[in-house]
């Protein structure tokens, strides 16, 4: 217990003793996390958009003339079980007639003498999914039922939206990983400076019989403190920025930027802990070996 206190206080004291490196480390974590946080917010809002768009994806299925209502109902039940289908809406021949009447104001029976409108069904696809949404397998499955006469969908448009979205996800992921890797290196280099300044202490500790982890702990603790301070600053900047930005978009296009301050702070501080832990461990391990 006292040993833990000692290591902790060494870590905090180091923070004071190395003000310049502390500043550099905190500033670089602050910068990377601000960028990473912005990317995440952009990603999150893009996800909202893609979910909205996917809500609009529709597969319209028209059934053969001679299929009974009962058969149709059971086929639609089958559709619901297809992977990637969120919901279905059945429109029977009578429903179709009613829709016609409400849109054209006239009864179709009066015009052509019988109801030529086929029974149909609207299939909606799932909205939440990071991977590319491919509706072709769904369409193929639906087409394979002999009861189905025709399937209509906006294949090309959906394909285009999904392809762009996928490119976007890939670029964001690569950018994010890149930024995190770069920051691990920056941290590890700044921590290296403090380690060099502390060479005598490290050698003394090794002479006294300190284990590797005992020697490492204060540096790692110091690094994690840098990380947390950087994360708090970055969160503050992003939240202020987002509040202002959201106010502007709200007044201009009646749309607020979607984000949760708690999740943002949570993600940024855990990221910072991981980054600074990796960075400082790397630096001190390299020095000890």
């Amino acid at each position, binding site marked *: *217990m*006292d*040993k833990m*206190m*000692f290591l902790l206080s060494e870590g905090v004291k180091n923070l004071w*003793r190395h003000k310049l490196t502390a500043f550099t480390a905190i500033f670089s974590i602050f910068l990377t996390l601000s960028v990473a946080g912005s990317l995440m917010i952009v990603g999150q809002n893009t996800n909202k958009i893609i979910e909205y768009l996917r809500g609009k994806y529709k597969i319209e299925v028209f059934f053969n003339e001679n299929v009974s209502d009962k058969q149709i109902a059971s086929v639609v039940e089958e559709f619901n079980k297809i992977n990637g289908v969120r919901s279905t809406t059945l429109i029977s021949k009578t429903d179709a007639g009613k829709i016609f009447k409400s849109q054209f104001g006239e009864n179709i029976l009066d015009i052509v003498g019988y109801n030529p409108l086929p029974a149909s069904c609207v299939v909606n696809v799932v909205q939440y999914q990071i991977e590319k949404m491919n509706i072709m397998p769904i369409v193929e499955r639906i087409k394979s039922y002999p009861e189905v006469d025709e399937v209509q969908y906006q294949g090309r448009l959906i394909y285009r939206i999904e392809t762009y979205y996928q490119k976007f996800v890939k670029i964001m992921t690569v950018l994010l990983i890149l930024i995190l890797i770069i920051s691990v290196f920056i941290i590890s280099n700044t921590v290296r400076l403090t380690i060099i300044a502390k060479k*005598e*202490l490290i*050698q*003394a*500790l*090794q*002479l*006294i*019989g*300190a*284990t*590797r982890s*005992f020697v490492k702990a204060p540096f790692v603790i110091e690094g994690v403190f840098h990380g947390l301070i950087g994360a708090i600053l970055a969160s503050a900047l992003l939240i202020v920025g987002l509040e202002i930005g959201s106010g502007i978009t709200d007044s201009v296009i009646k749309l607020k930027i979607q984000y949760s301050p708690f999740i943002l702070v949570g993600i940024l501080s855990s990221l910072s802990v991981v980054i600074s832990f990796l960075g400082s461990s790397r630096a001190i391990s390299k020095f000890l070996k």
Partner: protein
Amino acid sequence: MIRLDNASYSYTNGSGISNINLTIGDDEFAFIIGPTGSGKTTLLRMVYMDLLPQVGKVVVDEFDSKIIKSRKIPFLRRKIGMVFQDYHLLDDRNLFDNIALSLHVLGWAKDEIVDRVTESLEEVGLDGKDDRYPEELSGGEQQRACIARALVKDPDIILADEPTGNLDPVTSFELIKLLEEVNREGTTIIMASHDYNLIKGRGHRIIEIQDGSVRQS
């Protein structure tokens, strides 16, 4: 017990020590003397396994250089107090914290540390100076502080490398007497020095080293 079996170590430039056979018992006070560059420091570094022999082996109690894993070496060092010329006090902390460091490493509780550090500062006559920074101590006081640092953990072995380095003869003599007292209480002492006058006629074992080889007397 410390035993070197045909131990050799050579630095990359070829110099070093070779074929050392030596046994030092637990109650011994042994001097290692020899001219500069003869290999005294190298020998001591082998004892605390900073250097592992390329040929032969060094055995210190249950630690055997042939089979020891590097993560076990700290546990050997916990039994050894070191007084080395270039092992200065850390100038970023006061005397008390410098000496307490060894006990922190051993995982002692805080109040035990306070008692023990105060005790060992008294032993070397530095009581009341515990909040001084190293730069506020004279050379001799610093040297005594280094001894206190070695003594504080009540080691089984003390390795001293030229501990009288920049001390005047009187202070040097007092330091030897202090070490003798520690030895009487059961600590093995190995002290390297090239000052034969300081150590002759005190009845201790003298190990002479020359060009990396031992000539025992």
